[in-house]
Structures are given as structure tokens and as C-alpha cells.
């Protein structure tokens, strides 16, 4: 190592953004995580976390499944939530919420 600090470069004072402050913000890379706003992390039908694709979606064409964000969450009027894929199959057999047995009707869908 020579006596250099890294990346010392000479650049004309073209920025022009003279500021009276000692430190000024130039760029901020902010990181946030999103998750479904659910009470229970796990889908009671397939036993997979709702943040992951349901078992069925994971199974079919593993390689492509991350390309589409189809496997969303659905909330019932009872506020219970499941993978939409899982619930669509469930209601064909039984039109009640698997957790509370109330009649199933969709309150909202995740997007």
C-alpha cells in the first residue's frame, strides 16, 4: 500500500450545489421489506408461509415460479387469510373458512 486513501479523485467544482451545511445528502438508498398484512404467517390450508408461494405454485415449474407474482393472499370477511390459490380450491369443496367455519366471502385480495 502506498500512502494513498482510496479513490481520491480530482474533480472540478462543477457541482455548484454550495451549501452552508457541513454534511449534505446526495443520495439515499432506502431499504424496506414488505409482507402481507396478516394475523397469521402460515396458510392454514397448505401449511406454507403466506409470504412464500403456496405448495402448488412451488411445485409446478420451479424455475419459472419466481418470475410471476401470482400467488397472492386473500382475506375473508372473517379476517382470516390464505393463499388465494389454496382458498380457490378449498371453496370448491366447502364454502366455509377452514379456521372459523363461517361462510366464506372475500373481503379483499392482496396485490
Amino acid at each position, binding site marked *: 500500500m502506498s*500512502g494513498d*486513501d482510496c479513490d*481520491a479523485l480530482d474533480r472540478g467544482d462543477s457541482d455548484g450545489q454550495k451549501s452552508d451545511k457541513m454534511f449534505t*445528502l446526495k443520495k439515499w*438508498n*432506502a431499504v*424496506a*421489506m414488505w409482507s402481507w398484512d396478516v394475523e397469521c404467517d402460515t396458510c392454514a390450508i397448505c401449511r406454507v408461509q403466506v*409470504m412464500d408461494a403456496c405448495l402448488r405454485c*412451488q411445485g409446478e415449474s420451479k424455475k419459472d415460479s419466481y418470475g410471476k407474482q401470482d400467488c397472492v393472499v386473500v382475506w375473508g370477511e372473517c379476517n382470516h387469510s390464505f393463499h388465494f390459490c389454496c382458498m380457490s380450491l378449498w371453496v370448491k369443496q366447502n364454502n366455509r373458512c377452514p379456521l372459523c367455519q363461517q361462510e366464506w366471502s372475500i373481503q379483499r385480495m392482496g396485490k
Partner: protein
Amino acid sequence: MLKDKGQVTFEDKWPNMRPIVLKLLKQEPVTQIEWQDLFGAVHSVCLWDERGPYKLRDALQQDIMMYIKQAQARVLAQREDQALLKAYIAEWGKFFTQCNYLPTPFRQLENSINNISKVTSSSTSNSQKKNNNNNIEDSLVRKLMLDSWNQSIFMDIKQRLQDSAMKLVQAERNGESFDSQLVIGVRESYVNLCSNPVDKLQIYRDNFEAAYMQATEEFYKLKANEHLLTNGVQSYMKYADQRLKEEEARAHRYLEPGSGSVAALTQCCEKVLIGEHLPTLLAESAPLIKAGETEKLQLMFRLLDRVPEGVTPILRDLEAHIVSAGLADMVASADIITTDSEKYVERLLDLFKTFSSLVKDAFMDDPRFLTARDKAYKCVVNDTTVFKLELPSSALIRGSKGTAPESKCPELLANYCDMLLRKTPLSKRLTSEQIESRLRDVLLVLKYIENKDVFMRYHKAHLTRRLILDSSADSEKEEDMVEWLREVGMPADYVNKLARMFQDIKVSEDLNTQFRGETTRHDAINIKILNAGAWARGSERVTVSLPLELEDYIPEVEEFYKKKHSGRKLQWYHHMSNGTITFANSVGRFDLDVTTFQMAVLFAWNQRPLEKISYENARLATELPDPELRRTLWSLVAFPKLKRQLLCYEPAVQNPKDFAENTTFWVNQEFALIKNGKPQRRGKINLIGRLQLSTERSQLEDNHSIVQLRILRTQEAIIKILKMRKRITNTALQSELVEILKNMFLPSKKMIKEQLEWLIEHKYMRRDDEDINTFIYMA
């Protein structure tokens, strides 16, 4: 004609027949008339003389015997071996030819005798069958001829014949040449002589083959010991190899083809030349392996592979060599490799290449040797003598009472992989092809790692940093690597998560473009909104009081996101976020790449640029938890690459733990970047270092969670197996379990046992009442 009946007798006809028979036996020319007369005479005798056929047969036999006696006398007149063989072969040749002619005129005789015996004895289905086809091989007269030869001449002189033939073979072994046709002729006579229809090779096998084998065995019993004593083992191996080839070729010459004799002889030679000297030969294996004598090993392998269990000890020697040489190498270079993951992986690969070429050159990549190499290399890779990863042994972990230390290899391998994929001096130095081939090397070593889950954890952490800091050297290679990990059998849910991370980055870029498109006020912000499930499951967030410049963006981003999506909640991960700030002092203006925590600390001086701020006040201003604040301040007062630090402080301490509440900090107004020993007025420096992915506390818990995850995976796998099998023995369960888990980690016997007990205790399963080593699933 009727009057003639009864008057044609054997005695009438024989005097005319006999000279013709004798001519035929002696191979003298017979006219067509004589030949036809003989046919006619045989016919008449058989037709008119009731006792004719038997008399005819007996007379014929007498003459045949007489002829044979004369031949025998001619053969035995020869004193010398070669002459004896020559005479015998010649006599036999003539006689054997006649065996094909003489029976022809006597076909009527055969029919008659067969018919009579058919009447007298009712159980001769064999001869009945033979009667119907005129196959010369089945002929009675022919059998008579061959049996007579066998009983007289052969029985008397076979020992001399064999001895003479074997003497010739022996002479050939000793380098003398002779007419090989002599031995071949004797063998052929043995083969043709046999009239046993079930086993035509019986005489040959019982006599010639047995004598040949015995002579060979005796010869080499003597020679092998002699050679070993005078010339030593290594020379002996060459000798044995050469002799085995020679004897095989000789056997093809002298032994009957298609009789299995050649294989039997080869086996006999292998026994005498190799099998009986096995311990002596095997004693050479370890030293030869150690010395890398590939040519000699090749020879040894070729020899010992011929005898049962000959190769197994060499496999053991190879394995022992790889383990000890590999570990010795690692210990010898411990100083370098424990601190430099590039050097470490290079050493490991060098070893692999060395051992692989040994297996290739010495053992022709024989699958058994490749397996031994793999087994031994696995020991080297997973060894814990040079350095180890201490996994916690905590009573807190459900159902576990501690774990053994594991190899640090996966961690170093992941670090090396990061150096190749990140913008680093290493990755800049290498071409794209070189990087690819080195990544392939990483995958190769990974194959041998038992605790792959540790690699996965580190690899994912490195990838997270590269994606968030946008520091990948080549994004295409990044995605290739994900697919390669899939190809080498990394668990699908893990690989899918990595793939999902790339997808998230692309989605975030689009989102960012839209957000910044709305107003120019957003030019300074770059947002990444990522799937918590793929990126940060279980990681803890850190609270921080953001500088106002940053804080203002938060509601705007959240508002914007809500319009795009529904049913989602956002959590800010400020310990991961970062940025660039400009620092202006009396020397100049500098761009600093910093973490958001560093930003929060530095911005505290904006209101009071020249003041000293105590540790306590810094905490009040930033609201950072103690460990994070100490770490952040330390990175600003003692950044390794800087000659002049950004912050000054007093009193001096050795490490961040020693900052006191009243330690004071102030901005270094003399701060500058130094180039060629001179302070610069402009410049850019990255102060981020290693981006923090979780809190200090949860980092300590990282290894803890590896163990927890293993316990969970083991329990899941046990339940999965039991669900499928309903009942299963302990042994079968263990092997199925290892099969399921091997791409993540190797479950220890102890851990499996603990988890079985836990599952039994919690009524997921039970032991069979009859057999405590069988488990039964309880739904």
C-alpha cells in the same frame, strides 16, 4: 435262392472281407469293387447268419486291436520325447482318419446289432434313437475303434505322452523353441479320442488339462519365489505381469478353445503369481502411493485387480494417504489459509487436483478409486483441526444438548465466492471465463461439504449485501450462479429464494423509476422494497432517529406504495440502507459513501459544526441502541483505510466497548483524503465496510439459529418418512433421513436420537411394543 438260405455264413465270407478291412486300417488303397464287395458281404452275413453280426464285430475288433498293437510298437520304439510325440501324432492321425471311413461299410452290422438288442432288452431308447440317424459320430464301429485305441495304446503311454508334452511347454517357458504342433497334436488326440457323448472333453480335461495346470503351477511356485528373493517386489511385479500375459497367450495356443481351460489356467496363474504373494505385494502399496509412483501403481493395480479382495487394501491405503497428506498440507499452511479465503480455497482445489490426477494416472479413474478419493477428500474438507465453526451448545435449544464443532470450510468458501462475484481487486483481475471456472471450483468443493446449510447462510448474506449495495461485478454471472447451485442439488426452496431476490431487485428498480418520475424532489432517493420472506425472515430491525432530510421521504414512499399495492405492510430496514453525503470543511469537499446509521451520527453536527458531542448526546440524537452506536462511532474514528479520520474523540480507547458516556467526539476540520502523501481538496471514500444485515445481538444468534433450523428440518424429515412408511426400523429410518438431509447438513447420530426421543415424548410417534428399534407413526 431259397436253397442258399442258411448257407451264407460268417465263416464263408470273412476270409474275403478281411484283406479289405486290413487295407482300410493300414490306409492302403482299396478299389471300388473291393469297397462294394465289403458292403455286400456285410449285408449278406447280417441277413443270413443269425450269429453273423456278433461274429463280424468280434473279428473286426480283433483286427483293430492287432493294428493298434502294431502302431503302439512303432510309437514306443521312439526313445526321445519329440520323436515319440511325432510318431504318436502320426499314428493317431492315420487311425483317426480311418475312424471316419471304416464304419461306413458296416452300417448294416450296426442296424442288425441294434435291432437285436432292441428285441432282447426293452430299455434301450438311446441306441434306438441313434439307429435312426446315420451320424458317423454315433457309429458303433467308430466307438469300437476309439475305445480300443483308448484302452490299449492310450492307457499304456498317456503318461509318457503328457510328460513329453509338458516338458516341451516347460522348455518353451524357459525360452527354447520347438514345434508347437507337437503339443497341439497331442491335445487334439485327447479331444477326439473321447467317445463319451455327454462329455466329449472328459479325457482331455481329466488328463491333458489337469497335467498342464499342474505343470504350470509347479513351475511358477518355484520361479515366483526365486524371482522375489533375487530381484525384489517391484521387479517381481513386472515379471508377474509379463508372465501372466505370456501364459494367457500360451494357453490360447495349447489348450482346447471353448472349453473354459484358458480361463481356468489364467486363474491358476493368478493364484500362484499374485494370490500367494498378496501380503508382500500389498506392503508396497502405501509407499508407492505416498511417492506418487503412478506407473508402478498402475502395474500393481492391474495385477491385484485380478484376484479377489486384491484391490480393497489399496483403496484403504489411498484413502489414508489423501486424508493424512491433505490434513498435513492444511496444517502446514494454517497461517495463511485461516485468514485468506482465496488462499484456502486454492489450497483445497490444489489438493483435489493432485489427488484426482493420482487416481487418474495410477488407477485409470476406476470408480472404486474415485469413491475412495471422494470419501477421503470429504474428510479433509470437513476437518476441524485447522479451524472450526463453533456451534452453540445450549440447553435453550429444544431437544438438543449441544453439538460438535464443524468445519469452517463453508464459510470461507462463501467468502471466496463473494470475492469472485463482487467488484473486488480479484474479480477485476480475472476474465469472465476465469471467474466462471473458479465458481465451478467452488461448486466442486461445495459438493464435499457436510454442513452445506452454513454455506447457504453465508452465501445468501453476501448476496444480500451485493444486491443492496449494488456491488455485483457481473449481474449475469450472479444469476448463473443461482442456477448452478440448483444444478448441484441445493435445496429448491433455498435456490428459489435466491432467485426471488433477483426478481425483487428488478421490481424495485421499476418501482423506483415510477416514484422518481412523479416529482424532481425525489431525485436523491432510491428505494428498494423487498419481499420480507425472501430477504429477511426472522431478522431483527433496529430503531434509529433519522435526520430530517431522510425522514421526510418516508411518508411519501409509503403513500406511493399504498397506491400500487394493497394488503401489504412496510417495514423500514434502516440498518441495511445507505447513501452518499457531501462533507465540506476548510480543506475541501468530499463525497462519503455511508450507512444510514453513520449518516444519522454525522448529521447531528449540522446544527453545531464545531461542537464536541458526548457519547450520551450522540445516543440522544440518534436513538441508536448501544451496540450499534458504538460500532458506528468506531467506524468514524478508526476507519482502517483512512490516514485522517472523519471524527476525533477523547479519551483514546482500544475498542468501541470502552467508549464512556462522557467520551467526546467532534468533526475533524482537517479531514482530507491523502494521495501521494498530499492532502486532496476533492475526493470520494466508501465508509460502509461490511454492511450490517441484522443487529449485533441477532448476529450472535446466527449460529444458534443454524442449529435450530437443523433440529426443525430433522423433525420434519422424520415425520415425513414416518407418514409415508407408517412403521420403520431405526436403521432404515437413519439412512432415509441422511438421504433427505444430505444437501443441507449431515445429521449426527446424537441429534437424530434426541429428536426421535422428543417426537416420541410429544406423541408424534412411538416405539413398537415388540421391538424397541422399530418406530410407528401416530397420526
